[in-house]
């Protein structure tokens, strides 16, 4: 068995975002300097990373950091924790990318890594979850004409966030992926490791539970 390639200390390139697609990693010629990673598709990036081009991972981070950060933010509800958690997700992805088989898109795989990290973090911090005011909660719409209306909306939004935070883990993850990350049911099923029917049922129960939680307030 060969040993690893060594410390991954190469500089990364910074590039604009790209959309993802479901593609199998393939043994593209990726070790040479001729491949422009900023325009490469996901399969090429993954293959390049596996071949030892660490800067390919930098490109993956650039393309997906916003989605992963937003996912984390929906779980921990403050910027500091969300950025720490998103960083943790990418470190996990870095370590595990050689296991990515291309059965789903890279985005879905990253969501899977992200949801697991988020649920672990939330479970570990559960007693603290109710105390943290969020950046979103602190933002009152200054442009609103009616201040009373703005306050009421603000309170309702806070109540919704609190109710989402109390949902069972899979329902919460399903709701976040569907409503805020706009994933398809198939992507949610792949990210959470279940069937499409189960993903739909989880969404149904999540919305039903939210409704019940908010109606008693």
């Amino acid at each position, binding site marked *: 068995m060969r040993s690893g390639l060594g410390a991954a200390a190469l500089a990364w390139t910074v590039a604009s975002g790209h959309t993802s697609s479901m593609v199998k990693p393939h043994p593209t010629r990726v070790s040479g300097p001729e491949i422009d990673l900023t325009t490469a598709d996901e399969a090429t990036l993954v293959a390049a990373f596996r071949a030892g081009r660490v800067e390919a991972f930098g490109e993956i981070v650039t393309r997906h950091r916003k989605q992963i950060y937003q996912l984390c*933010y929906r779980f921990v509800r403050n910027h500091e924790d969300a950025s720490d958690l998103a960083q943790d997700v990418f470190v996990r992805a870095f370590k595990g990318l050689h296991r990515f088989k291309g059965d789903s898109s890279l985005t879905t795989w990253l969501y899977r890594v992200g949801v697991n990290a988020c649920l672990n973090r939330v479970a570990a911090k559960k007693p603290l979850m109710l105390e943290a005011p969020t950046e979103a909660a602190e933002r009152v719409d200054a442009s609103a004409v009616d201040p009373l209306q703005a306050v009421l909306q603000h309170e309702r939004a806070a109540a919704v966030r609190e109710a989402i935070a109390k949902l069972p883990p899979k329902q919460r993850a399903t709701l976040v992926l569907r409503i805020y990350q706009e994933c398809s049911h198939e992507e949610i099923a792949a990210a959470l490791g279940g069937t499409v029917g189960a993903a739909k049922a989880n969404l149904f129960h999540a919305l039903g539970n939210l*409704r019940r939680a*908010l109606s008693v307030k």
Partner: protein
Amino acid sequence: MTNHLRPDEFVDAMDGALSTARGAHLENCADCRAELDGLWSMQREAHADDAFEPSPLFWDHFSARVREATANEKITPEPWWRTGWQPIAVLTVAAAAVVLLVQTRSTPAVVAPGLAPVTLTAEGPVEDDGSWDIVMGLAAEIAWDDIRDAVTPAAGAADAAIEELTSAQREALVRLLKQEIGE
């Protein structure tokens, strides 16, 4: 047993993907419609909660943090038997073919009973044989570069050879390789 929509069917209805038959039920069932309206309104309300947007400067800072965090992580490339098995397979098959050929040629010929086996002897110098002169003459006309081109596999030839194998042949090849590498 009631005929109300199932949870997944409610979600299909929200997505506008409910089947015609179940859509007919929804149209005539006040309970299902009320449930669906409730789900719709809850989804709208949850969706209205905007995401927090960090400063645009945050993203490069974030990438730098991830880069730093992964700087000391080692990445393990794919094992060689996953990435480089095709050329090895071709070489193994070629080696096996050579061994087989050598063994076949070195096996003594079956001699019919009653016939004396022919024994080759080198009584005189080989060069004295006229056929050897012909071979030597032909060899002298062939350039070394031509020989090298003929015996050296072209780039990608191994991949092409593997592509032409049937799935059964590939399986046999994998078995052979595993035997060779002792798996």
